[in-house]
């Protein structure tokens, strides 16, 4: 894992849940929530958990006003690019529209070797359900952020209804993207409750996540 991980993808692809799980599992120093698209279910809602775990949270909101509904980009989000001693995860809003906020930090994003710019993919999202649409979305994403995507995450799922076949179905599509664009599948995401049902050996690191951002009854 590189020092800085930036997660992008279609909205609802699972970026926030993966960000929070990764941050907790990998003992990341900073979580930078730059989601200006979604009004709900943002990683910033978990500030107390982060405090307890010693993770610093930077929010894309006016300080102490998480529900202001204003797309405010905190300048504190550049710290991890400047301070080479820390690790960070950036959680962007959905699609290229959510990712465009990164332009605000463009002047400090210099050392590309230490940054993973990852596209989170769930093939059960209708807008990213096939190879062509996924590649088109990656092209748009790169154009909007002026950053090269460096890897993919297979987060293909239907929440509670996910089966092993569903994740394999996702892997087959994402693998074709991976081959075409020469991008590695860095992680395959499996929800904790499904873990014991999974026999298949998936591409990339297996990232077992629990539902932290979304509540159980959702």
């Amino acid at each position: 894992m590189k020092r800085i991980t930036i997660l992008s993808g279609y909205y609802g692809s699972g970026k926030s849940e993966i960000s929070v799980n990764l941050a907790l599992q990998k003992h990341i120093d900073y979580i930078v929530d730059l989601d200006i698209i979604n009004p709900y279910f943002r990683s910033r809602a978990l500030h107390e958990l982060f405090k307890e775990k010693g993770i610093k949270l930077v929010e894309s909101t006016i300080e102490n006003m998480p529900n202001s509904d204003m797309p405010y980009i905190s300048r504190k989000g550049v710290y991890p690019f400047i301070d080479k001693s820390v690790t960070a995860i950036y959680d962007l809003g959905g699609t290229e529209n959510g990712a465009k906020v990164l332009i605000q930090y463009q002047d400090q994003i210099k050392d590309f070797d230490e940054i993973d710019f990852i596209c989170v993919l769930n093939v059960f999202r209708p807008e990213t359900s096939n190879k062509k649409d996924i590649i088109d979305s990656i092209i748009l994403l790169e154009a909007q952020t002026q950053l090269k995507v460096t890897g993919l995450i297979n987060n293909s799922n239907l929440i509670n209804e996910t089966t092993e076949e569903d994740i394999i179905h996702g892997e087959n599509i994402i693998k074709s993207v991976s081959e075409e664009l020469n991008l590695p599948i860095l992680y395959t995401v499996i929800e904790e409750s499904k873990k014991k049902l999974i026999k298949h050996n998936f591409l990339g690191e297996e990232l077992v996540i629990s539902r932290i951002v979304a509540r159980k009854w959702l």
Partner: protein
Amino acid sequence: MSKVLMKGNEAMALAAIKAGCDAFYGYPITPQNELPEYLSKHMRTHGRAFVQSESEVAAINMVYGAAGAGARVMTSSSSPGIALKQEGITYIAGAELPAVIINVMRGGPGLGGIQPSQADYNQITRGGGNGDYSLYALAPESLQETVDLIKESFEIADYFRNPVMIAVDGLIGQMMEPVDVDREVKKWDLKPKTWAADGNRKDHPKNIINSLYLDPQDLENHNIKLQKKYTEMKENHQRYELINMENAEIAIVAYGSVARIARTAIEILAEKGIKAGIVRPITIFPFPEKAFKELPSSVENLLVAEMSMGQMLQDVKLANECRLPIHFYGRVGGIVPEAEEIAQKVIDIIGGQSHE
């Protein structure tokens, strides 16, 4: 088609396209923005109309025009935006036009907040605009149900020639869930729209779309005719679900997201040996009074749980006809009640510590 994972707002948008919605007119407001955003892209590719209007007021009046011209038309908004739309909604009801209005509720009063709420219950079920009229109002609890009901709501609107409101809270707009958008829904027996002022005089005599009746007797007659429609809704089209009601000692009355949370609450209670059921209104107008007549004799208490200060409570009191003690648990301001809170409330009631 198999299931896809969708966000509530986009699932609602797609459902409208699937239902043959000819036009969408709307104005941005959180937390429903993904809905018009989705339609701005997809209505065009389907050759349908999409306009981001200058205001909610303009949007609903565009809906009036298109509905009057015989089109299937939808708008969406969130609570303060719905308040602005009330002007057009009463005209649509008064002129007996079909339209689908989606309300992704947020907290109020005033500008309130952007977090989920059910505090538009009165605004939805008591008309909201001027005059004696009612909306047919559906309050689904899951994305699948939302998609199915939106598809059917275009049929219901055409059948009654009346606006139908889909009342969901921000959570349903924002949450992700797998849905089958092609599931068959009930088809209603619909007549051709020979009344439409669609500029097609070759096919019909002059049509006028109007809600103005200057003669008091004409206006009274018009109101009586409208009331017959609402009576028909009340008598034959109440929808509700009774959940886990066999031998239940308490019934939790909750709709939409809160019903969903109550489902978890009754599991928590079952673990503690308490048998609780749920009365889940699916229509909030007409209010499902019939559900309360079907409660088993084991039910000794009712608990109304909602994300408002007790707006639905009044309808439950009327439906209950003073039979059972009624208790209330509400959270507002965008705070979503936790299943544990509702379960605790039930425990308090059964222990005899609660009062409304």
